[in-house]
């Protein structure tokens, strides 16, 4: 390439990448910055910087709404559901990866084909099922529904993890008289840490961010999760933009924090979620 062409190429690449960075973080930065401005400042100019740095809006959100309760709800539902699903899927993935038995292919393909089912299309049947179990408007309902959400991807990730653990370790354990459960719990599970972390983070983020079923299956504020609460703030704060921006900032922060601490796992899980197709 001659110099002019090369410069043009680098300029083009720079512009495309700059655009990508801007659209990815500018809206978020704008929300965070706006949460420190006064209502009047927000209305008069969207780009002005805050004149004073105060957390008043954040305090107000905690005082005026049950923000803490919603956060705790989200946390409880996400953690409990993720913990149970990790156990369930680790068990299933383990036997699928390590043993040969009749019906294995059928069972595994049934598990994985669930990926093709858009969650929303089951909305009404699950709504009825939850009412049938007398669980409408409970956190238990959300825990149960979220169990199913990460099935295909978690099994896919965990099966690959268990398959990559050499059989020698299990065989050595059997020689020493270790039983089925012990071999699973003490030999294989500790060696599957990275896969468990990837699947766990994937499911936790999914549960933490879930809106559709939380909206459909709960009504009372006691059981409200953060994403649903956020939508309801729209009415509470229809004229108090500062507080709304503060609430938004607090709601998106945990996801970004988790990502910054577990970047590789989040990226891997996202790739895995694509490969499945």
């Amino acid at each position, binding site marked *: 390439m001659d110099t002019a062409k090369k410069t043009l190429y680098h300029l083009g690449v720079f512009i495309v990448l700059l655009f990508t960075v801007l659209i990815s973080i500018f809206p978020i930065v704008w929300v965070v910055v706006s949460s420190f401005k006064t209502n009047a400042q927000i209305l008069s100019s969207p780009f002005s910087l805050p004149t004073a740095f105060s957390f008043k809006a954040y305090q107000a959100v905690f005082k005026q709404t049950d923000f803490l309760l919603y956060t705790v709800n989200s946390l409880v539902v996400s953690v409990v559901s993720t913990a149970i699903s990790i156990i369930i899927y680790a068990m299933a993935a383990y036997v*699928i990866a390590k043993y040969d038995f009749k019906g294995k292919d059928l069972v595994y393909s049934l598990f994985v084909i669930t990926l093709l*089912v858009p969650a929303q299309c089951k909305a009404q049947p699950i709504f009825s099922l939850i009412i049938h179990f007398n669980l409408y408007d409970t956190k238990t309902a959300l825990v149960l529904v979220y169990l199913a959400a990460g099935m295909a991807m978690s099994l896919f990730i965990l099966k690959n993890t268990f398959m990559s653990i050499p059989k020698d370790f299990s065989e050595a354990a059997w020689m020493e008289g270790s039983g089925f*459960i012990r071999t699973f719990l003490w030999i294989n599970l500790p060696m599957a840490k990275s896969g468990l972390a990837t699947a766990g983070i994937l499911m936790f983020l999914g549960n933490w961010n879930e809106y559709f079923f939380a909206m459909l299956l709960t009504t009372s504020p006691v059981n409200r999760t953060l994403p649903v609460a956020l939508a309801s703030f729209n009415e509470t704060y229809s004229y108090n933009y500062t507080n709304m921006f503060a609430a938004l900032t607090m709601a998106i922060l945990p996801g970004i924090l988790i990502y910054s601490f577990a970047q590789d796992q989040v990226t891997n899980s996202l790739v895995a979620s*694509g490969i499945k197709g």
Partner: protein
Amino acid sequence: MKPLTARQKTLLWIWAFLLPCILVLLLFYLVPILTLVYTSFTKWDGANPPVFTGLTNYVNLFGANDFKAAFVNLLLWSAIAGTLHVFFGTLIALILFKEPHGWKFVETVFMIPNVISMAAWAMIYRFVFNGSYGLLNGIIRTFVPGFAVNWLFESPYAFWAVTLTWLFYAVVVTLLVLGDLKAIPSDLHEAARIDGAGEFYITMKINLPLCRNSIGTSVICAISSRISMYETIALTTRGGPGNDTMNIPLILVNAINNSKYGYANAAGMMMLLLGIVLLVVVNKAFRMNESIY
């Protein structure tokens, strides 16, 4: 009873380990899908048992204005997702593959919109597109003073405003294509360079054809996200103005709220079937079942 052999014991453990997963499968996939299929042919309000009505729900659905609008929207959105969206993600992948200065930073930052809740994302875009103090109008006003369009609530802007909430956020496409690019044996590139091929030629004739699988997968992911797109509509335009931004999940939720369960499930069936059609068509088009190397 005879004592179990070691093999039988193991088999028992195997199925014991599978049992919880099978229960979840039955309860949250098989039962709901069977209910979905069956009750989509019935009139059902939840209080009384479903009454078989044949294709009535489907006939009503296809005749409804909101469904017609949703279907047209979905076609247009799918076309945009399958072309522009996938193109943008692939372009970023091709750029990052060359590892230009700061590529790691771009990849990291590009991910961020995907780790926060869609509900929060919808709220953020509500403010970005706000008519009076929104970010977009703020930018435009520096060039055109006094500019005022309420993007989410005026026709025909609302459709494009909703489109912009996802159009460029193609990090999944980028990561998938990047994975395929990194898997290309480097001697293939070297051989091409020795033969005198330019970078553009290598990209078009070697890299892109070898990324057939990930691009196909990306098209499926991108379009199926359009079929189930809910939050970014429900929390912004609610399908309006008119039916400008209507989508099938909104129709489904409306029907549930109105206790028209059979009708809701006919809408659910359409989502399920469209997803399957999409998978089959894209698989064929990208010859995704044939191995590449």
